[in-house]
């Protein structure tokens, strides 16, 4: 049976070059980077080299990179680290309604601890109006955190404009770039951000490792105390194999960006055209052009997404859905709700996220099986109109 992975926003397959780069650091170069002997120094060298590689991808300086356990920790460090440090200067944070739970849940926790949070709405294509962000800034505002690209619908936010407007009022800007790296150019100076989160496993690297870019001069309260690793910002013996893997993945993401982006956009556009053309009452979610090149997100009337996902899985196709029935909480996707899509249609949503290795033949196979599956489920559904 076919086995087609099109859930690359959930995670990606580690690149063989990444795995090869990591292996020596799981085997012979096992040293602790804090040790002064040769074993330690080999690890320390790898750490320095990796920091440079990640910085290069972002157009940053090596000492602006803090390695973490992944995107979630990076987001926590950016938000809580800023909030705790600046709590005497102000207690107001601005974010959006479509952020990843790593941001939203952290904000809710900060609210419990006396901070105030404004959640900026989006339009029906998932876009934030930078002027809404500007208008939300008050004297008490200490931080704005808006994602670069959405993990569900792939809408790309105007971070450059948000940064400019925020800096005119002296407010720091953080962006969660976990989904955008490797798909569109991500340069911290072009974006104008003060902090940026990234994760290795979304760019064909290993799980459990990520980084936070913190612009020189921007200070944070430490969340993880201990031996003073990562210049005191994040203690704990460095995960050298993971960090080397992240660095290799970052290097490849940079080298392959142009080729990957155009390949992905080709597949995406073909998939969207084919689905719209062959499934009546199918609707594209998100923005038609301000969209990640690998994101195809649809809703289909009269069918439920979990059924769709499981039936596609039986045909060897791995995708995802925003349907409540597939989530642990049984809540429909907060992102699709924010677009104003009615619940019964959110249940019928399907996310296809393409990866470097996918081919046009695979797109054809997936669309063909999607048509068949939607037709089968609609025939079974009591809400499908007759004829």
């Amino acid at each position, binding site marked *: 049976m076919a086995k087609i992975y099109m859930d690359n926003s959930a995670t990606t397959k580690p690149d063989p070059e990444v795995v090869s780069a990591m292996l020596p650091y799981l085997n012979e170069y096992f040293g602790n980077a804090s040790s002064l002997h040769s074993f330690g120094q080999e690890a320390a060298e790898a750490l320095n080299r990796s920091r440079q590689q990640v910085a290069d991808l972002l157009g940053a300086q090596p000492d602006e990179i803090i390695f973490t356990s992944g995107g979630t920790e990076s987001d926590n460090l950016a938000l809580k680290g800023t909030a705790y440090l600046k709590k005497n200067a102000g207690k107001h944070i601005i974010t959006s309604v479509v952020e990843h739970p790593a941001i939203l849940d952290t904000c809710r926790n900060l609210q419990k601890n006396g901070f105030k949070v404004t959640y900026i709405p989006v339009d029906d294509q998932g876009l934030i109006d930078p002027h809404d962000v500007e208008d939300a800034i008050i004297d008490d505002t200490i931080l704005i955190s808006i994602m670069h690209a959405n993990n569900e619908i792939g809408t790309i936010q105007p971070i450059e404009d948000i940064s400019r407007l925020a800096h005119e009022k002296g407010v720091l800007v953080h962006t969660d770039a976990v989904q955008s790296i490797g798909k569109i150019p991500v340069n911290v100076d072009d974006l104008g951000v003060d902090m940026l989160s990234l994760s290795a496993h979304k760019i064909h690297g290993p799980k459990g490792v990520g980084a936070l870019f913190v612009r020189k001069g921007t200070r944070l309260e430490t969340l993880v105390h201990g031996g003073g690793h990562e210049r005191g910002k994040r203690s704990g013996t460095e995960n050298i194999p993971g960090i080397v893997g992240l660095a290799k993945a970052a290097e490849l993401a940079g080298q392959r960006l142009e080729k990957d982006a155009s390949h992905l956009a080709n597949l995406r556009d073909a998939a969207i055209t084919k689905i719209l053309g062959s499934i009546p009452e199918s609707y594209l979610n998100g923005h038609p052009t301000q969209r990640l090149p690998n994101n195809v997100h649809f809703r289909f009337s009269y069918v*439920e997404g979990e059924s769709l996902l*499981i039936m596609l899985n039986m045909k060897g196709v791995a995708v995802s859905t925003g*349907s409540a*029935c*597939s989530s642990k909480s*049984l809540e429909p996707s907060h992102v699709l709700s924010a677009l104003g899509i009615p619940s019964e249609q959110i249940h019928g949503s399907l996310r296809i996220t393409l990866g470097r290795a996918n081919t046009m033949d695979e797109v054809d196979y997936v669309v063909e099986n999607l048509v068949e599956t939607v037709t089968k489920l609609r025939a079974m559904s*009591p809400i499908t109109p007759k004829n």
Partner: protein
Amino acid sequence: MYSEKVMEHFSNPKNVGEIEDADGIGEVGNPTCGDMMTIYIKVDDGKLTDVKFKTFGCAAAIATSSMITEMALGKTIEEALEISRDDVAESLDGLPPVKLHCSNLAADGLHAAIEDYLNKSKSN
């Protein structure tokens, strides 16, 4: 996360469709919640001679619908009214805990169809 039995009924559901001249129709759930089910029954001499369903919902909702049509077929009305949600889940070798409440509507659907039949026969 689903048992093999659930997957079997989901991929090859039994008795899908409508009964044109049904004696009773039961409709439960609603599309906003993500699960909606319509059960059609045909009754002859106090026995269920035909049972069909149409379902909008997750794999569990579809599997429980298919299962209950098989369980109810040939039973008397009294016997069919005794089929519980738990019986349906058990016959499918269990359902994930999170699905026990929301997607396990088939017994309710069957009971609603029987009630509809009984109400209709009363008014005749």
